[in-house]
């Protein structure tokens, strides 16, 4: 069935990314937005846009009935869920098929199967894919978790069965910390996914997090598009991703590819998906989970393979056969992604405020996927991810050099961002060597630099002096009708830190 109108059930950079693919395919894009997002970039970018409710996502972006209603009313044939929000909620594909809409993603059965992490682990174990030792059933109480942890041995990892994106995840080093961690994880899981089920597994020390990107059509064709290395994580939240991985050679890539394709095949999964593995220091790999959606980090794969994954998703959903064969997928150069969040770069505490000045990087090898614009209000309601910078180079060294250049060019004023953190990652010796694991973030220190202390002090003094001399009158404030306050007062009033 030809798709020429798609509702994008998301916001931020991923909604813009999908709308861009629609534009290139001559498909009408239909956005939905909460009251707080009226001026957001995804609303302005889409061909059509409909309000969906109040700012809290529970009353807007997470309300399946409203999304289906708008999709039907606006004559869409399909819904793209992006990532996060409803992307891994099987009720959305189910509602889609009842309403006669195409869900751009797997069937609700495959999603439900893989979304239940304990069921998924059982299935993979049966299929002969290595898994990490752990408990396969949701744990009812903290006591049950404690006895399971005793059997497996500390450290253990608590994870939401409905989870993803690092939410509802806790590592527990010793028995006395289990109870509090279990309760926090439950609460977070409930808040994030509407399901408080928690399971537990052995915590591998210093593993690497490596995942395989998959495309599977509805005619049984499955290919992989190489691995992504996602070991730069904090609280199980990925911060930097790259492809290819420094430790994956031809043989390991082939073997992980076979396992990933098998995992997709046995779960009856279609569309784009990712099979996540942990790889230990002996380069043994263990199945972790399937991310039943497009991932935040998909652009690194796009840059080294030349494949537009969102377009492929749409083509698969419309029933087309994959035009790509496994032999068509090569590796051209190297790509790295940095996730730019509205967070303090030291404490990772969220930062909110109005984006007052925005200069995005560009030039050779740099791609930006952004959900923000000048005058955009970063609010407390949604995920702090503002944008992603992706750098391509003929080799990893060039990709790193270009990423450093891009981070240096990138100016976001009005909120704190993780850009300074990413600079530290990119010059970290372990990262540069390629020999790093999921513990790398804890080793990245904020090194006090004094190189430009004097120039910074001079600039501060100049601004202090100039701003004392500029007096604004109340008349000027009348121009606030144009929302210019951020720009006009930017130098003397700061929001967000």
């Amino acid at each position, binding site marked *: 069935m030809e798709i020429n109108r798609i509702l994008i059930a998301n916001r931020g950079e991923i909604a813009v990314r999908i709308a861009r693919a629609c534009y290139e395919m001559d498909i009408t894009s239909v956005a939905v937005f909460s009251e707080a997002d009226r001026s957001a970039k995804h609303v302005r970018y889409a061909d059509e846009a409909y309000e969906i409710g109040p700012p809290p996502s529970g009353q807007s972006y997470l309300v399946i009935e409203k999304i289906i209603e708008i999709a039907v009313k606006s004559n869409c044939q399909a819904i793209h869920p992006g990532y996060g929000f409803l992307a891994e909620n099987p009720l959305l594909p189910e509602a889609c098929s009842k309403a006669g809409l195409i869900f751009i993603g797997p069937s609700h059965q495959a999603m439900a199967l893989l979304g239940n992490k304990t069921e998924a682990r059982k299935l993979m174990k049966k299929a002969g894919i290595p898994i990490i030792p752990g408990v396969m059933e949701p744990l009812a109480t903290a006591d049950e978790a404690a006895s399971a942890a005793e059997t497996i041995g500390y450290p253990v990892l608590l994870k939401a069965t409905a989870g993803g994106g690092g939410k509802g995840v806790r590592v527990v080093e010793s028995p006395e910390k289990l109870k509090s961690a279990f309760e926090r994880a439950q609460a977070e899981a409930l808040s994030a996914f509407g399901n408080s089920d928690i399971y537990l597994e052995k915590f591998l020390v210093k593993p690497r997090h490596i995942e395989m990107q998959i495309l599977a059509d509805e005619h049984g064709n499955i290919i992989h598009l190489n691995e992504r290395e996602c070991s730069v994580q904090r609280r199980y939240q990925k911060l930097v991703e790259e492809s290819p991985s420094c430790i994956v050679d031809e043989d390991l890539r082939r073997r992980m590819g076979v396992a990933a394709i098998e995992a997709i095949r046995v779960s009856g999964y279609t569309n784009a998906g990712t099979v996540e593995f942990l790889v230990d220091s002996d380069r043994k790999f263990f199945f972790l989970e399937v991310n039943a959606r497009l991932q935040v980090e998909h652009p690194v794969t796009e840059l080294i393979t030349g494949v537009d994954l969102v377009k492929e998703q749409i083509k698969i959903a419309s029933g087309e056969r994959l035009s790509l064969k496994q032999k068509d997928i090569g590796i051209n150069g190297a790509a790295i992604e940095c996730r730019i969040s509205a967070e303090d770069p030291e404490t990772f505490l969220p930062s909110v405020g109005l984006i*007052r000045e925005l200069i995005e990087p560009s030039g050779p090898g740099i791609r930006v996927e952004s959900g923000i614009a000048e005058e955009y209000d970063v609010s407390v309601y949604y995920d702090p991810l503002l944008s992603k910078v992706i750098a391509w180079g003929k080799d990893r060294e060039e990709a790193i050099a270009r990423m450093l250049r891009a981070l240096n060019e990138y100016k976001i004023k009005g909120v704190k961002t993780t850009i300074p953190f990413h600079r530290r990652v990119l010059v970290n010796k372990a990262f540069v060597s390629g020999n790093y694991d999921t513990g790398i973030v804890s080793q990245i220190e904020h090194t006090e630099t004094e190189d430009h202390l004097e120039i*910074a002090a001079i600039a*501060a003094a100049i*601004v202090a002096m*100039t701003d*004392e001399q500029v007096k604004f009158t109340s008349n000027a404030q009348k121009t606030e009708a144009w929302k210019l306050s951020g720009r006009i007062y*930017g*130098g003397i009033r700061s929001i967000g830190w």
Partner: protein
Amino acid sequence: MAYVVSDGNHTLRVEASRLEVRPHDELFQMEIDGKKKIISISRISPAHLSIIIDGKSFNVEVEHFEKDYQVSTRGEVYNFSVVDEREVTTSSEQSDSGEKVIKAPMPGLVVEIFVSEGDQVQAGDTLLVLEAMKMQNEIAAPASGIILNVSVKSGATVNSGDDLLVLDI
């Protein structure tokens, strides 16, 4: 005008006077810790300065809230207090024992409070949980002490900088 600029580890005295306003920049005479320099400033936007000093070109971004300045250049970030020299001598020192007000480090929802007035806490104990941007953040005691006051209730929405608790340390 002279300012005392401090990042906690270093304190610099910066004296600035405007020499000339030209069509495309302004020239300032600066004296920093006794060294004199003439610099060219072009203010691209309120928060964005181009500085040329001895031929070196710097893009400097300056944001501030009252006397607290955040200055970025060439990927480095400095947090300064900037005080008019005339004010320095009259300002009194802050005490660092006694009452410690714990403020919300970000806007969010108070999910749960683990302590009440009069409780004895150890440094590192979780005092309350603040949810923001879908993450649950545990707010820990910065030092051991006794809870003097709990300023918020569970379920309350707080802004960045709002008082959460008062601790006697």
